[in-house]
């Protein structure tokens, strides 16, 4: 059976079509998953895209983490399904408890949209295995609440266990330890603030480095 990757749409999701485009760019079928529907439609992995789910009028990602589809995603992730949370998706994964820490208002208090050089700090996750450890990749960030925070013990543990997936080389938002993205203990659930789905083609993004995340998970799924 051919591989399928699901892309969740909440009301207020904005980069869902873009995440689907990135999935199709690696010649994998993108399956649309609706927030109110708990059915994961037989997908092999899930991308929670960027946006402002439900307007983010509570805490960013807080309401989305309780959507019917997220209950299924959380269960599937605990069963080993690879899940990628991008921007608002990262916030949703933190709110749902799949990833540690939280994202708060940027240090500069402004929305920030710019191209960032990220260092791949761990090439051992399901979403980073195509990269060389320490590789630098150019990916855009665009967010208001992207400052990653966690207690010192958690940050130490993430560092120690190689679960910092990506780090900023020029921290745009005040994130602790320049953390741009983290993985869960299994390495199959990854969340990051930058937008790899907007770096799949030099025509519409700063690079095509973002494809590496999607190709990485494809390797995992094909091997599995």
């Amino acid at each position, binding site marked *: 059976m051919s591989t399928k990757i699901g892309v969740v749409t909440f*009301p207020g999701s*904005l980069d869902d079509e873009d995440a689907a485009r990135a999935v199709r760019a690696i010649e994998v079928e993108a399956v649309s998953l609706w927030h109110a529907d708990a059915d994961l439609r037989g997908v092999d992995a899930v991308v929670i895209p960027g946006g402002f789910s439900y*307007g983010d009028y509570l805490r960013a990602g807080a309401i989305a983490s309780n959507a019917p589809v997220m209950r299924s995603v959380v269960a599937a992730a605990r069963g080993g399904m690879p899940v990628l949370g991008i921007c608002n998706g990262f916030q949703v994964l933190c709110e749902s408890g799949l990833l540690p820490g939280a994202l708060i208002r940027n240090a500069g208090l*402004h929305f*920030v949209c710019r191209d960032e050089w990220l260092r791949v700090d761990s090439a051992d996750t399901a979403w980073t295995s195509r990269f060389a450890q320490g590789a630098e990749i150019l990916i855009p960030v*665009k967010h208001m609440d992207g400052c990653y925070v966690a207690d010192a013990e958690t940050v130490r543990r993430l560092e120690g266990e190689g679960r910092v997936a990506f780090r900023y080389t020029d921290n745009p938002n005040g994130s602790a330890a320049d953390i741009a993205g983290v993985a869960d203990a299994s390495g199959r659930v990854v969340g990051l603030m930058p937008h790899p789905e*907007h770096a799949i083609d030099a025509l*519409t993004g700063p690079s095509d480095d973002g494809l590496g995340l999607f190709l990485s998970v494809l390797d995992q799924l094909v091997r599995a």
Partner: protein
Amino acid sequence: MTSTEVSQIVDTVDNAIATPDHEQPYRELGLKDDEYARVRELLGRRPTAAELAMYAVMWSEHCSYKSSKVHLRYFGETTTDEMRRTMLAGIGENAGVLDIGDGWAVTFKAESHNHPSYVEPFQGAATGVGGIVRDILAMGARPLAVMDSLRVGAPEAPDTKRVLPGVVAGVGGYGNCLGLPNIGGEVVFDSSYAGNPLVNALCVGAMRIEDLHLAHASGAGNKIILFGARTGLDGIGGASVLASDTFSGGTGRKKLPSVQVGDPFAEKVLIECCLELFAAKVVVGISDLGAAGLACATSELASAGDGGMSIDLDRVPLRAKDMSAAEILSSESQERMCAVVAPEHVEEFLAICAKWDVTATEIGEVTEGDTLVITWHGHTVVDVPPRTVAHDGPVYHRPIARPDTQDTLRANVPDSLARPSTKDELRATLLRMIGSANLSSRRWVTQQYDRYVRGGTVLAQPSDSGMIRIDERTNRGVALSVDCNSRYVALDPYQGAQLALAEAYRNVAASGARPVAVTDCLNFGSPEDPGVMWQFEQALHGLADACAELGIPVVGGNVSFYNQTGGTAILPTPLVGVMGVIDDVRRRIPTGFGTEPGETLLLLGETRDEFGGSEWAHVAHGHLGGLPPKVDLAAEALLADILIAGSRDGMLSAAHDLSDGGLAQAVVEAALIGETGARIVLPEGADPFVALFSESAGRALVAVPRSEEPRFTEMCTMRGLPWARIGVVDRESDSVEIQGVAEFTLAELRETWEGPLPALFD
């Protein structure tokens, strides 16, 4: 409440007939004596309170164009059939629509939200974006991108620190949350905007040609469905009354400004819901609710259809208690739409709205008659011919007089201003110019806007134009630029407006797209000032005549009057937006140097000693006088042809239009954007100051790969476009050298160019 009690407080039509001498607060609502008399004449009785509210908002300057209508006809008169060839809808619809090929229709429009943005910068700007996006949506199109053109007071003025950050946060906060990329715009500082900033927002959208929706209510028995946000007390007498009232800045303001409050999440959901409704083909007609709210939507839909309409206000979902009929009709609560739906489609319509959690309510229906009848609490509170509200408003022929001061202004030529002549002076001037408020990098602003969302952005700020891909299969796309140098317009409104068009046209061509259509946003002072009306008429004629000469139609736009503080008007600001089409966005021309190894730099067009209204005269001497640069539309068209041919045949690796700040500015920007050094050799015998800082129009700086240079220059020579080789790009170098004048490191230039706005506003 019993019906007797209600009738005591409700001003019904019967009540209006029975009490003809009841005194009404029409002046407070903005109607003049003769306008009120005209309403009474049209109805043959006094209006009810609700009717009065409708006429007052719909007959305001903002909604009725009463001072500009007689002049706007000139656009139609100067648009030829040839120019209309690809026009699917034009002025009068919510937005103009163009056939761009491959079965795609593109719609775009600019609109002002100036007055609310002064009162409350964040919400004023946010709802400005929200409003223009709904205009595009109401055409049946998916909104694809926005642009914003901002004008505020002097950079150091304390109030600018309130207004600009608030406006930028509002534009960004709304657009980012709505999921529309912001692909360009302008930020201009001038003290004339201190008490009256300009916030002009543009939106572009696309649809398949067969999906075009026009606003009308046809077919008796069809249902009127109001959907989206609930109706509240915000923005009552907002845009429409606020925008028609001068900021007097003192005592005696009777109307409390009430700026609308935006909810971008509600609008995002509304967009997706509408697009699903369109796709399901369950919509006969649709209108957005903007200025003048339901009063506008019902009267416009009804007068554009073939019947009458009945509306039951008790069904309108409210978010405030005890709203009167007049308040419900004139509320400008955001994120609402009104649709006409055939009875057999109502159920499906409501189901789609339910899927998106969008409140949708049937509030009335299309009737056989020809009147708009509105009931409230079981009483008829409005019974009017809808055209009298929507279209038969007053039309003024305002007095027009060329101001006496115009001759003095034009005689005050910049020729005697001290010019830099030594190398040190020229070096210092270049740094001062690129670090000035108007020429410095806009990054502090644009970094607060999402330019990537939707995945179709090919070019965005700081490129000459914004470009988006429309068709992922064919790579067809459009480019847009909005421009206006209001100092030029002040010196000569006719030519100044033409220069604004020429600049936007040139910017679009410099990205490789062929300009096809124009939208405008005409921002001026009070129409009751004959001098302002002269500026307006001149600018409008200049723009229309230039469009006719270039063969591109004005397909839509907006007029904003009363932009003044006390008796002092803003610099006249006819903002011009040009849209171009590019067959294949992969052939776009970037602005930055260094995409190819070994590039030669060519200056296209003719440079003259032209400093009237220039940035240099402003920065170095605080001077405004003389004549603006010469307009040569034939030269602009030729330059555009050459740029487009260069893009199509892959002969250009970079292009940057020359405008404010001249050649020096263009070289610095292209080098910094490309992060590449360059060596400039000014043409032999040229006065370095004029060569570097003149603002002659019709020019562009291009980078040509060495292998293409003979072919490209031969084309220019053959077609009669002046060109000069003025240097080379050096990817190994980290400096910009202007031979015989000065050398700058890229780091020094970047710090000077990027430093000012963060220093002022962070």
